[in-house]
C-alpha cells in the first residue's frame, strides 16, 4: 500500500515537473552557450560568436571586411566551409588569398530581398557551419523594406542548429539578435601597407550581448 502511494507521488511529481518545464521554459537551467572562437581579440571578447543565434556586426564597410577576414581565416584553420551571401555583389575575390577562397561559397545577389531568400535556403540546408549575410553596401531603401518578421524567422530556423549566422549591416537594424557588435574603425590610406592580420588584431568596438541584463538594455537602445 505504502509502496503504491510512493509510486503515485513519484508520477505526480514527474507530471508537475513536466508542466513547469512546458509553462516556464526560461526557468530551466540554460544550456551552455556554444561559441565559435574567431581568433580576433575583439570578436572573441565574450568567448566568440554564438552558435545557433544571430550575431549582428554593424559599422563601416572597412570594419565589416576586416571581421570577414578574421572569419575566413578561422574557417581555413578549422577546415570548415563558409557561406557569404553578398547583397550588393561587392565581394572582390582578387583581394583575398586563394587558400581562403577554397572553402567559401559566394552567393552574389543584387537585391537585399533576394539575399534574404538565399540566406533562408542556406540556413535551412544546415550544411555550412558559418554563414555571413553582408548587407553593408545594400541600398538603404532596400534595407528599410525588410520586414521585422524576417529576423524572427531566421532565429527560429537557426536556434536548433550549430550554425553561426553573422549579419554585416551598416547600422543596427536586426531585431532579436543574440549579440550586436558595433565596430569603431577609422581606416586611413596608410592601412593599405599594413598586414591584414594586424588590422584584425586592432579591430575594436562595443559588444552588446543578450543574457547580460545591463548589456541587454544597451542592446535594445542601440537598435
Amino acid at each position, binding site marked *: 500500500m505504502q509502496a503504491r502511494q510512493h509510486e503515485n507521488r513519484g508520477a505526480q511529481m514527474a507530471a508537475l515537473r513536466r508542466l513547469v518545464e512546458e509553462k516556464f521554459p526560461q526557468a530551466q537551467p540554460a544550456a551552455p552557450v556554444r561559441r565559435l572562437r574567431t581568433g580576433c581579440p575583439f570578436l572573441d571578447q565574450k568567448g566568440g560568436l554564438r552558435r545557433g543565434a544571430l550575431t549582428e556586426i554593424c559599422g*563601416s*564597410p*572597412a570594419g565589416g*571586411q*576586416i571581421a*570577414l*577576414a578574421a572569419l575566413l581565416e578561422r574557417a*581555413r584553420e*578549422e*577546415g*570548415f*566551409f563558409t557561406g557569404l551571401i553578398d547583397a*550588393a*555583389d*561587392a*565581394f*572582390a*575575390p*582578387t*583581394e*583575398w*588569398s*586563394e*587558400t*581562403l*577562397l*577554397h*572553402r*567559401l*561559397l*559566394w*552567393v*552574389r*545577389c543584387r537585391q537585399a530581398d*533576394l539575399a534574404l*531568400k*538565399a540566406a533562408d*535556403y*542556406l540556413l*535551412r*540546408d*544546415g*550544411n555550412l*557551419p558559418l554563414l555571413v549575410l553582408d548587407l*553593408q*553596401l545594400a541600398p538603404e531603401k532596400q534595407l528599410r523594406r525588410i520586414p521585422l518578421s524576417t529576423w524572427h524567422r531566421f532565429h527560429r530556423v537557426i536556434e536548433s542548429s550549430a550554425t553561426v549566422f553573422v549579419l554585416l549591416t551598416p547600422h543596427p537594424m536586426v531585431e532579436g539578435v543574440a549579440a550586436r557588435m558595433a565596430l569603431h*574603425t577609422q*581606416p*586611413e*590610406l596608410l*592601412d*593599405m*601597407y*599594413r*598586414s*591584414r*592580420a594586424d*588590422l584584425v588584431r586592432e579591430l575594436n568596438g562595443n559588444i552588446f550581448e543578450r543574457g547580460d541584463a545591463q548589456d541587454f538594455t544597451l542592446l535594445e537602445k542601440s537598435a
Partner: protein
Amino acid sequence: MFTCLLAPSFRLQAALRWRDSRGSAAVVDEMSTKAVILEVNRAAEARRIFAGMTATQAMAHDPRILILPRAPEQESCLNQLLAERGLALSPEVELSPEGFCVINLHNVAAGTCWQQLADEQIAHLREQGVVVQVGMAGTPDLAILAAKTAITHAAIIYDAPAFVTPLPLLALEPGEALRAILQDWGIRTVGDFLALPGSEVTERLGAEAQALRRKVSGQHKRPLELLRTPPTYSEAYDFDYEVDTTEPLLFVLRRFLDALCTRLRTVYRVAQTLHLTIPLDDRSRHSRVFCIPSPTAEIEVLFRILETYLETLQLRQRPIGVRLCIEPSLPTRDQLSLFESALRDPNLFGETLARLKALLGNNAVGVPMLRDSHRPDDFFLADTFPTPPPGPPAPCHGLPLRRYRPAEPVSVQTMNGQPATLESAVATGNIAQSMGPYRLSGHWWDKESWETEEWDIELTEGGLYRIARQDERWTVEGCYDVC
C-alpha cells in the same frame, strides 16, 4: 553450358513498358505504308488478331485494341536489362537487338542447379517488369532454340537429339527457298531433316542447309560475339500526348528511378551522373546533366534533385516524352584529414545550390576561383569546393576592396599628374591623399590587350576608394570604406 534469356514479343514488351495494359495490344511498324502489325499479345491473339495484319484490320476485330508504334529507345533499354542480367552471371555475353542474350555459363560453380538458376533469372526480370523465356543447352544455338520453346517454364536440354527431333522444321527459320524445297521433299520436322545424309544435303542445298544442321547437331559451339560495352542504366518513355505540367514527368521519372536504383544496388553501384532528356513537340530536345555531389543509389535523393530542377524549368515547347540515363560509379568513401570537416549532407547541399541558382542565376553561386592573370576582378565560380592546397595562405595586406559592378563612371580633375577632385554618383569631393598609379596591363600580344592605371584615394570628407583610368576614362572601381 549456355543459357539464353529471350524476351518474347520483344518490341511489344518494350512499347508496353511503363504502361498498364490489360486488354489486347499490338505494336505496328510506323515506317510501313499501311502500318502493319509486328507483334500482338495473347489477348489480341484470342481475338484473332495476328502479326501481318494492318492496324485497320486489327481494329475491325477489336475496336478497343491498344496500337502502339515501335519504341526503339525503349527496346534498347529493355535489351540493356537483359545484358545486365547476363553480365551478372558471366562476362561472356552475346546480345541480340532482337531481344535475347546468350550467356556462356562455363564459370558457374559445378553442382549448380540449372533449373533453379533459370527460375531465378525469370523471377528477377519479372520484378523489373520483363517477361523472359529461358533455355539452357550445351551450345549457344540450342540454348536459343530451347528458349523459344520454353513458354511455360525454363527448358534445360541435356539430350540434344531428343530435344530437336520432334521440333517443326520452321523452328530453325530456314530461308524461303530452302523451306519450299524441304517441304516438297516431305521434310516436316528437324528429325526428318537430320535423317538426310549430311554431305549430300550440303551438295544439293548449299551452305545454308549445312549451317542449319550444325545449329541443331549439338556438337558445334560457335564463338559468341561478346558484348564489349558495359550496360547502360537508362529508361525512356513517350507520352501519348503533349504534357503541360510537370506531374506526369515526375510520375514517370519516379518509376524510372525505382527501377534503375534497384538495378544499381544489385550490382553494388551508385549514381554518379544523371542525364535527363526531354523530347519536345517541335522535335527538339531539352537536356540536362546532373552531377551528384555524393554519388548514391537512394531514390529519394535522386528524385529530389530532378524535382527541384523541374519545378523551376520553363520550356517553350511541350514535352512528348522523357529519357533518363544514369552513369554509375563505385561507392566512394571520403577520408578526411584530422581537422578537416566535410559537408553533412552533400546531396542536400547540391539541391540547395540548385535552388539558389534557380533564384539568382547560374553564374551567381559558387566557389570563387582566381584566374592566372593580373587583370582586375578576373575570377570564375566553381561548382564544387576544390581541395585546398596545404600550408598557410600567402599573407594579405591592406583593406579588402568592395567592388562596384559595373564600375561607376567618374569625372576626375588632376593636378601635377595626381587626381585632385572627383565627382560621381557614389563619391564626390576633394582628394586628401592618393597612392598610385599602379599600372597593370596584359595580353599585349593579342587583340584582347588591356591596360589600366589604378589609384587608391582618400577624400577629405572621409571615404577610401579605388579609382582607375583606362583609355582616358576614369571609373570608381570600388570602395574600402565610405564616410
